[in-house]
């Protein structure tokens, strides 16, 4: 199933919160299909008895004390990049309706 249809690409774009122009849809249909065809070679590899690898550090459950630490930043410093704020809080567009 590596040949993607136009609808497949539009669905992926929507899931990924991307809007695409018409020419882009056609381009990605072709490019994503060729990438997926390339990675499909993995399906024939014998992996019987092997577990998937999620990470390679060998670390497990790195914990820390649940204590507030000060890094010397004020909330306003961290809100400097936010496009819309109100009362020192992040403001977003209407979500429903």
């Amino acid at each position, binding site marked *: 199933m590596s040949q993607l249809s136009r609808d497949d690409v539009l669905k992926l774009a929507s899931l*990924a*919160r991307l809007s695409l122009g018409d020419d882009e849809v056609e381009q990605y249909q072709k490019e994503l299909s060729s990438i997926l065809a390339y*990675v499909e070679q993995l399906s024939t590899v014998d992996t019987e008895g*092997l577990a998937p690898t999620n990470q*390679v550090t060998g670390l497990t459950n790195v914990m*820390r004390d649940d204590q507030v630490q000060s890094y010397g930043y004020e909330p306003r410093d961290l809100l400097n990049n936010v496009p819309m704020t109100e009362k020192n809080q992040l403001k977003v567009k209407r979500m429903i309706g």
Partner: protein
Amino acid sequence: MSAWKPITQLAADVQAGRTKAVDLVERSLAAIAEHEEYKAIIATLNETAKSRAKVIDEQVANGVKLGRLAGVPFIAKDNFLVFGAETTAASNILRGFTAPYQSTAIERLEAEGAICVAKANLDAFAHGSSTENSDFFTTLNPHDKTRVPGGSSGGSGAAVVLGLAPFALGSDTGGSIRLPASFTGCVGYKPTYGLVSRSGVVAMGSSLDTIGPLAMGVEDAALVLDVMAGKDPLDSTTIAKDPAGYVLPTQALDLTGVTIGVIQEYMTDALSPPIKSEVESAVAKLRAAGAKITQVSLPSLPLGLAVYYVLCPAEVSSNLSRYDGQRYGSFTADAQNLFDSYTRTRETGFGAEAKRRIMVGTYVLSSGYYDAYYKKAQTVRTKIINEFAAVFNKVDYLLGPTAPMTAFKIGENTTDPLQMYLADIMTVSANLAGVPAISIPCGLASGLPVGLQLIAPQHADRKLLQLAQKTEELLS
């Protein structure tokens, strides 16, 4: 291309008052201006760098003992957050984003007296092998302006080779430090996964991302690694530093009893003959110096690229979901609602390669395809890791070329994304296995630099740097 003294020497000169930090910074900024045509740099930090240098010179005058990098200028890839500076990751979506905090790597370098003078160009979000995916401009190769410098840390590689600073920082997810080192002719070090904190570095593929130095010599790279390495409470994937550190001992490595395995899967007939002959000549020199050379096979290595191009986009699609225009970066002011604001911000803010990876990642993680693609790739990853472990029972190090080609022409690989991905075929496996790897200059092929790649087991960074230094000496 003016040469800087070794970093320890520069810092000693500053500490002794023989050289002013201000002059080192001025020299770096002048070199950046002089070589502007190569487009290695996105932004310079003139004022902050000069004022930091002034403070260091005053401290020297007052007899203060400074750190090991006192007054040494450096350049950070523009995916490192540097306090008060714009950090774009060479993407339109992060244009105007001013770092409200600083990456741990930069903090540690500054604590030893180093001075960040500029931010280097990269493929946007470090997605690429040539800097052609930068949303701003393509960096030119210092050896041939019609060719790419490699990527994604291409600006960092070009900067070091042009002498813009004694060292630069890069990030390596699938080869992004080693490939530009190979293409531009410098040393590029990718440490064991987890050795350098990623806190404050724009995330790409979190199970693969590493941070390391690019420099003109192994000694400089080792010192910079030593300063950055070790556990960081702000990155829970970090591991402890080797108690012996990474600063190289004065006594060069004795190759007697050292076994080096030449990776057969990388030395095939398909490899360009001039690259193959440069690598073979390096092997001959190592053998003549006493190393035991053996041919080894890791049969699943050729699958590494396919594994990488499932796992990396999957992690990218997750990491890049945070760029939604609500908290930072570009923003669509006239959007009708929140969904519209997300999609329009991402549509204009992301370049073609970021969108490609986000969509491939979304596909392989989606219900129905997760097992067939993502989980399968994770399992083949295990197979590759097992092969590395088995081969490291027989040899101390692995050796091969860094890339199957030398620097290619600008535009040569931009029409077919898959063709571009092939540049990473010899570098991705070290990221999948989490092992350290280094690229060092190894002669020229048709006038263009060739990179030699040396790989060691996880946590053997010190040992790897020692072999790299010895090899560098034999090749000089």
